[in-house]
């Protein structure tokens, strides 16, 4: 479980910040991924590139403590193939 702050645009003021509970998951767009493996070095519990240069997702669900490393992997991916989504 992770707590995220959701900002609602347009209505103005600090009341816009409300707290919501969601499960987070990581997804890969395999049409974009070229198997460069940066994600593996940043989040080795989640990703591994195999012998054929294809990315294997070892686990999808992200716990609180893991969110930062997966976020770094998402930002590090040169092909923007990774996304964190609400499960």
């Amino acid at each position, binding site marked *: 479980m992770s707590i995220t702050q959701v900002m609602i645009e347009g209505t103005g003021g600090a009341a816009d910040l409300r707290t919501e509970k969601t499960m987070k998951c990581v997804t890969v767009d395999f049409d974009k991924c070229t198997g460069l493996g*940066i994600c593996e*070095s940043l989040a080795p519990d989640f990703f591994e590139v*195999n*012998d*054929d240069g294809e990315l294997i997702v070892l686990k999808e669900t992200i716990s609180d403590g893991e969110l930062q490393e997966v976020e770094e992997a998402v*930002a*590090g991916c040169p092909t923007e193939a990774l996304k964190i989504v609400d499960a």
Partner: protein
Amino acid sequence: MSQADVDPRRLVVVGASLAGLRAVEAARKTGFTGEIVLIGAEDHLPYDRPPLSKAFLAAADDSGELPEVPWFRTEETMREELGVDVRLGQPATALDTEARTVTVGDEQIPYDLLVIATGAHARLLPGAEGLDGVHPLRTLDDSLAVRDKLEAGARTVVIGAGFIGSELASTARKRGLEATIVEALPTPLVRATGHEMGAAIASLHELNGTTLRCGVGVASIEGDGKVERVVLADGTTIEADLVVVGIGVIPSVGWLEGSGLMIDSTIGGIVCDENLWTGVPGVYAAGDVASWMNPTLGERQRMENWTAAAEQGAAAARNALDPENAKAYGTVPYFWSDWYDVRIQFVGSPDADEVLLVDGDPAAGGRWVALYRRGDRLIGALTVNGQTEIMKYRVQIMKGGSWDDALAFAEKRRIAHAEKFAASV
């Protein structure tokens, strides 16, 4: 959002490419609500450079479509979603750190915080100006011009056997064109991968039908209006319709003359500390233009690779916005290069006491792995077609892993791989 919530500070980012874009995006991601101005010398919105010597130069697919331009973001995303005032097509020409302004044309653009991400530009070959068909390969416009020539079936000569020139030669071969690489040094890629491995990687060219001439300089590039031939120092003449000059890049710091920012006299670029701070209030640097102290390797470095530019862009913006909580940017450098059907990957530093081949045989082609030792520590790793190996070494280097542990790990992987291979035949 009400007026009161808007951060009064203005962030100016100079250089509208990878590091600059990541600076803008990171600033917004941390919740920065102030004004952002992004200044770019090129007419184009930010685009991705690695494809420019690879996929973007490929021949048309079955439906006759050439590959699309690798834009990062649409203009709408830049202006609407990121709320950036994008100023393209004119370079910044001066920085006044007292008045806190950047000069663009006749305008002085004020900043509170500044991220410099002006990257690097291609080194040119003196004397080849003005001949049609002679190109560097750094920008989208360069790549479009090169692609036109490849489409026309150009006989290609590449000057400089670095990564970009090698990728270009490999693309020309894939299109079935003649390709020759001329390299002035006796061994290519020494700065990036060290002596032993430079030669081993370069052997991929001969294996794939590209002629590689090392240890010989270019005497002249000749032609009448357009290029016709390259003459080497030993008198050899190579007929050519396209000459790509890939002899390295120069950090784009010319516009900072007189600004008081310190320029690194050995590796080039703007001198920064671990936090990518230049030492001048509010001024940070990121990407190919930044020389910074990399705490992970304990070395001052200037990177010319994608991963560092992306990460430094984001780190510089975050530190600029919140200097009290600034975080050092440390990394195990990483780059890749695609030649023929081979992927070359390198992590760490090539500045080593020993380089050891731990798996495979470069002469036999296929897959191989080499490790780099400094003292008793693993400091670098090179793989050719070793996609499943490379990042495991990056993690070890990141953690300061020992040489002995790396060797033991490599041996385990080698045996596992050999067994898997034996089982599959």
